[in-house]
């Protein structure tokens, strides 16, 4: 029920169109890249989907992260702008359930984005690499991996947005984190596991290093840890109000 209520609260906020816009922009990137310089990529040896992700995923992941930041800020701005959060706090509902409801909405929205983007990569592969055939299992695996890799970023951003009542502060923190973390080397496993850095990782790259399971498990663990932090914060904030 909380999930449906959280979706309903987003009516007319522009949040869902923002996720859609982010998806269109990210999906358009490989398409434009191939339209402009397809010879560069078709001449490369290797598996077509891997060639395309290597060439485009960095930019696509950055667009996804920026969309997550904007989405989280908009979702919590809806709560704080007219004191809606206070009304929720005096209703018989646990406030951390609201947090999880918002987290679930963002995860679903990102899943939709990733599906759209991976479908765009598949379409590019099928169009520019005639020998390539659609592989639904690989598509599903990539989708799940990218989604899990983004979970720590989503939950940390939701936590930041829930703490800061002023949307511009959480937006600023998010943008600073994106650009700070973007300078971290992607090859270093430890640094690539950081929130805001993990979404840049692709399944192919992780599989090449034999770290796909470690990566998945650690991202899941980070999500749980930030979830616990959100729960603790929800309980202690009353002492400071």
């Amino acid at each position, binding site marked *: 029920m909380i999930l449906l209520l959280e979706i*309903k609260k987003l009516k007319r906020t522009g949040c869902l169109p923002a996720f859609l816009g982010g998806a269109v922009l990210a999906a358009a990137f490989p398409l434009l890249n191939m339209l402009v310089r397809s010879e560069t990529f078709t001449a490369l040896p290797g598996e077509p989907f891997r060639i395309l992700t290597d060439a485009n995923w960095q930019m696509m992941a950055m667009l996804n992260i920026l969309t997550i930041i904007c989405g989280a800020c908009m979702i919590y701005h809806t709560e704080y702008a007219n004191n809606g959060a206070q*009304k929720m706090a005096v209703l*018989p509902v646990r406030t951390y359930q609201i947090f999880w409801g918002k987290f679930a909405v963002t995860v679903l929205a990102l899943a939709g984005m990733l599906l759209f983007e991976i479908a765009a990569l598949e379409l590019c592969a099928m169009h520019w690499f005639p020998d390539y055939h659609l592989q639904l299992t690989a598509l599903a695996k990539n989708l799940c991996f990218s989604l899990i890799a983004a979970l720590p970023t989503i939950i940390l951003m939701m936590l930041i947005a829930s703490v800061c009542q002023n949307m511009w502060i959480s937006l600023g923190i998010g943008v600073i984190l994106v650009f700070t973390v973007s300078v971290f080397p992607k090859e270093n496993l430890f640094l690539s596991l950081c929130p805001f850095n993990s979404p840049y990782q692709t399944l192919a790259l992780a599989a090449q290093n034999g770290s796909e399971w470690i990566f998945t498990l650690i991202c899941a663990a980070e999500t749980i840890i930030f979830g616990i932090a959100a729960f603790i914060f929800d309980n202690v904030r009353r002492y400071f109000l």
Partner: protein
Amino acid sequence: MNIIETNNLTKTYGDFTAVNEISLHIQKGHVYGFLGPNGAGKSTTMKLFLGLTQPTGGSFQIDGKTYPKDRVPILKTIGSFIEAPAFYGNLTGEENLDIIRKILGLPRQSVTDALELVGLTQFKKRLAKRYSLGMKQRLGLAGALLGRPPILILDEPTNGLDPVGIHEIRSLIRSLPQQFNCTVLVSSHLLSEMELMADDIGILNHGQLLFEGTMEQLRQTAKANGFPTDNLEDTFLAMIDDDNRKRGQIR
């Protein structure tokens, strides 16, 4: 029988004491008027009842339930309106109430009833952010009245309303105990309104409870202390002034 009871309830922020060991006794089925100048601790006390802030000391019971153990069951019995109207500006008045209705598990009809009760039916499809202050105030009240809870906590419910609106809301609050068999804790700066609304009065100053009792008891106490008794406003002002003077002497 007391439906709300506090025992030395205290809330401090650093070295500032907002609520200082107050012991309230709010009887079931009564309208309890909470009076005090700005910063006296009325809103903080109400926030404590709703679990919006944590008490520093003391305890309270609402309908036999204790905080923090029974926080959610307590909130199920309370309809509230605190400080400013709280709503989602991107949703219509009706959609705002529908969210509350779903959380409370009430039938659809309850939203129509609440809108009707506060006179917002014709504006139910308008976005809440486009409401005037008075309409936002009414929406907040409708949210509090949704499902006819046994306890209502209303903080300055007539703020921003025109004289006709004030009269309507006052009549509504006055009629609630009979209509819905509920208890109302209401704070207001409009002392003349309070005089017409409340069965019992609690007067707070600098976080301390100066008086608690019926209107008649207030008059008797005021008479015994040499305060004017012509109307509540004069009595209130004299009591606060006297307390402030005593505090000044202590300092």
